[in-house]
């Protein structure tokens, strides 16, 4: 017989997180909730006298399957937002009613039957399972081996992307760049004065004008750059004897 406290704990950590499947918005949260459900199920197996299955459940589901799900989530982008508005007419309420009805129906049937419980639960130790697997069910094991191989090959085939064109060499990349009229050489480096780490200071051309292309676009968008002229002006300012002292405040000055 099963400890009731243990049962209620298991019920709680399986049913409640699994509701995330219906109500949570972020897929990663759902995946993590299911991991919890799987752990709860593993506990249930151990409680029911199947320690081997419990371990396998942890290894296979929480360790492999759910991690695979998370990997795939990462591949397709975690920000795949889901619009929760229903698009198929009547799908939502018919689906809910059917699913709930199925659940209620099953529960009602199960509660109506009474099955005498065996006094002594069987031992689900690995050696017992192993004898079963490799004696009575050995043919099924072989067939499952085929199935796994086929599935692995199938996954390879499905996700394989054949290279349609030969890999472009550096020479070809460079030729294309010249052909479309882009910069034939590298863009100029920022920070000609090297007075500080200068990534936010544009380079100056021979006439003394700042070259906008020499600093990162990201810095520009964040408004974290300094205008060349103002910086030069500060440098040339004779009233500032120690220019290196001003570096920390140059950002505010540059505005």
């Amino acid at each position, binding site marked *: 017989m099963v400890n009731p406290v243990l049962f209620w704990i298991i019920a709680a950590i399986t049913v409640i997180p699994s509701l995330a499947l219906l109500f949570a918005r972020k897929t990663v949260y759902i995946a993590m909730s299911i991991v919890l459900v799987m752990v709860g199920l593993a506990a249930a197996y151990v409680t029911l006298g199947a320690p081997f299955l419990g371990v396998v459940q942890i290894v296979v589901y929480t360790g492999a399957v759910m991690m695979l799900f998370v990997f795939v989530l990462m591949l397709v982008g975690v920000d795949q937002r889901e619009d929760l508005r229903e698009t198929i007419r009547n*799908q939502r309420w018919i*689906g809910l009613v*059917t699913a709930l009805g*199925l659940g209620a129906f099953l529960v009602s049937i199960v509660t109506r039957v*009474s099955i005498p419980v065996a006094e002594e639960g069987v031992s689900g130790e690995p050696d017992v399972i192993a004898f079963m697997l490799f004696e009575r069910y050995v043919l099924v094991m072989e067939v499952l081996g085929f199935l796994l191989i086929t599935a692995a090959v199938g996954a390879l085939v499905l996700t394989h992307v054949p290279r349609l064109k030969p890999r472009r060499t550096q020479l070809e990349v460079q030729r294309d760049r010249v052909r479309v009229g882009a910069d034939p050489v590298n863009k100029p480096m920022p920070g000609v004065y090297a007075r500080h780490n200068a990534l936010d200071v544009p380079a100056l051309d021979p006439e003394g004008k700042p070259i906008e292309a020499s600093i990162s676009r990201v810095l520009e968008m964040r408004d974290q750059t300094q205008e060349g002229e103002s910086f030069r002006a500060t440098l040339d300012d004779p009233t500032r004897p120690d220019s290196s002292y001003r570096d920390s405040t140059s950002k505010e000055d540059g505005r």
Partner: protein
Amino acid sequence: MLDLTWLLIAVPLASSLVLLLAGTRANPWGHWLGVIASGSTFVVGLGAFIQMLGLDAEERSHAVHLFSWIPGGELNLDAGLLVDPLSLTFVLLVSFVGTLIHVYSVAYMEHDPNRRIFFAYLNLFVAAMLLLVLADSFLLLFVGWEGVGLASYLLIGFWNQKPEYATAAKKAFVVNRVGDIGLIIAMGLMFASFGAVDFATVFAAAPEASTATLTATGLMLLLAATGKSAQFPLQSWLGDAMAGPTPVSALIHAATMVTAGVYLIVRSAPIFEGAPAAQTVVAAVGAFTLILGALIGLAKDDIKKALAASTMSQIGYMMLAAGLGPVGYAFAIFHLVTHGFFKAGMFLGAGSVMHGMQDQVDMRRFGALRTAMVTTWITFGLGWLAILGVPPFSGFWSKDKIIEAAFVGEGAQPWILGGAALIGAGLTAFYMSRLFFMTFHGKARWTDDQHPHESPALMTVPMIILAVGSAFLGLFLALGDRFSHWLEPVTGHVEHHEPVLPIPVIMTATLLLVALGVWGAWRKYGAADVPTTAPTASLATVAARNDMFQDSVNRGVFERPGTHLTRTLVYADAAVVDGAVDKQAEAWSRTGEVVRRAQNGQVRSYALTMLVGLVIVIFVVVQGVSKPCSRS
């Protein structure tokens, strides 16, 4: 050597494939490869023959197992060869005559750009013909049977740039198919009644089978034989088959392939033993065809077609003999062998004449060729004497025996069959002499641009060899009944039967009729002038010139009704069968249009449907169980 007989089929087949696949680069040596392949079959055949001579009569049947061919359930058939005196006789005839004709063709086809392909087809023919005679089951025989049919078709239509030649090839093919149906049905009958199609099993089981089964099988075999051997009623293709090159006519349509029908009848002797009715039909067909062929031969002016008619008539003799039962089997095969020699020789002679006369075939344009072509004249003359049945030449020994055998029996049958054979001999004498005199004697009626000359040695040497065979082979084989004894393991021992007339009387009557025929022909065509255009003649002559209207009969009796029947069937098929199917399909299509709306393409909607179905199923199952299930 007996176990090497598979080489007989493999070597010419391989050579044929090489010649066909090697392309034009084989042109310089291809024909010699063909000759060597054919010659090697004769060497192997001769080796097997010598080895078999060393065996006792009872052991002269050797089975060569090749491979398991159709190992399927009730039908378990192995491909194997049966080497016995009968098949070995054919092997020697086919390979010897075939090799000579190969050599002859080297010169005859010299100016043809496709000579290599010609030799490939000839080799294919030799392979198929040897497979036909060596097979140890009807099904394997059928493979060879179709093989020679194919080779015949390819060779008749060898110059298929002429539409009428191509048509002739097609005609031969189609008529032969009619006969093949007979063979297929016969095999089906055998499989149904004996559960096997190999010779050994079928012949062992034949004596116990019912007469009706055996008669039906025998008649179907006869149908096959009439198709292949150009016997009535399937004789119409042979005349047109002369469209092929002359060596083909000599080899296939005189010496070997057309005699396959006789082989089939003799080989199936155990079946015909139990079916006297079928046997009588065989003899009747033979007798009828021998007269029919002779009558056609009387009127033909085309030298090759006249020879073809003569072939038809001579095979009629063989069929007649084969239909007489054990008395006649040995004589049928004996006549077949001698006929193979003298008729092939005469065809080669005709080819030689055509070669010297710029492919002229009209005998009314020949005449007086004996001075221009001495060798051809002599060799042809020996063949002529042989076919007439003048002693001591080959034909006498074989044909006379058949006529004697035809007179054996009771009631009216010997008188009818024997009479037909006797009259046929007289007619043969007349038309063959007519052919011979019109070609080689009388006045020259050549057109202006013809300058007859003797053919090269490559052509004359085979003719000489065949002429020697025509002259002396019969005597050699008939002395002491050598040939009958040789065939005894297959045909069985023949106890002597007395004909209804004394033998000297029959022999004298035959010779008298022959002399009369020759004399008549000499009066009309040797001594007198022959007009260069065919004179208008009586209805009978016109009928004979037109092959007894056999084409018209075929057209009227088979083609027209067949066409109408087919049209009716096509209409019925379109209206009734297709209509029903179409309407049904339309109905389903409409239903689909309606049901299609349920398919909205939404996966989740499908999932919902499945789940609803599942709930319903569980509900029904639970309700079906009256008491809540409990294990006590």
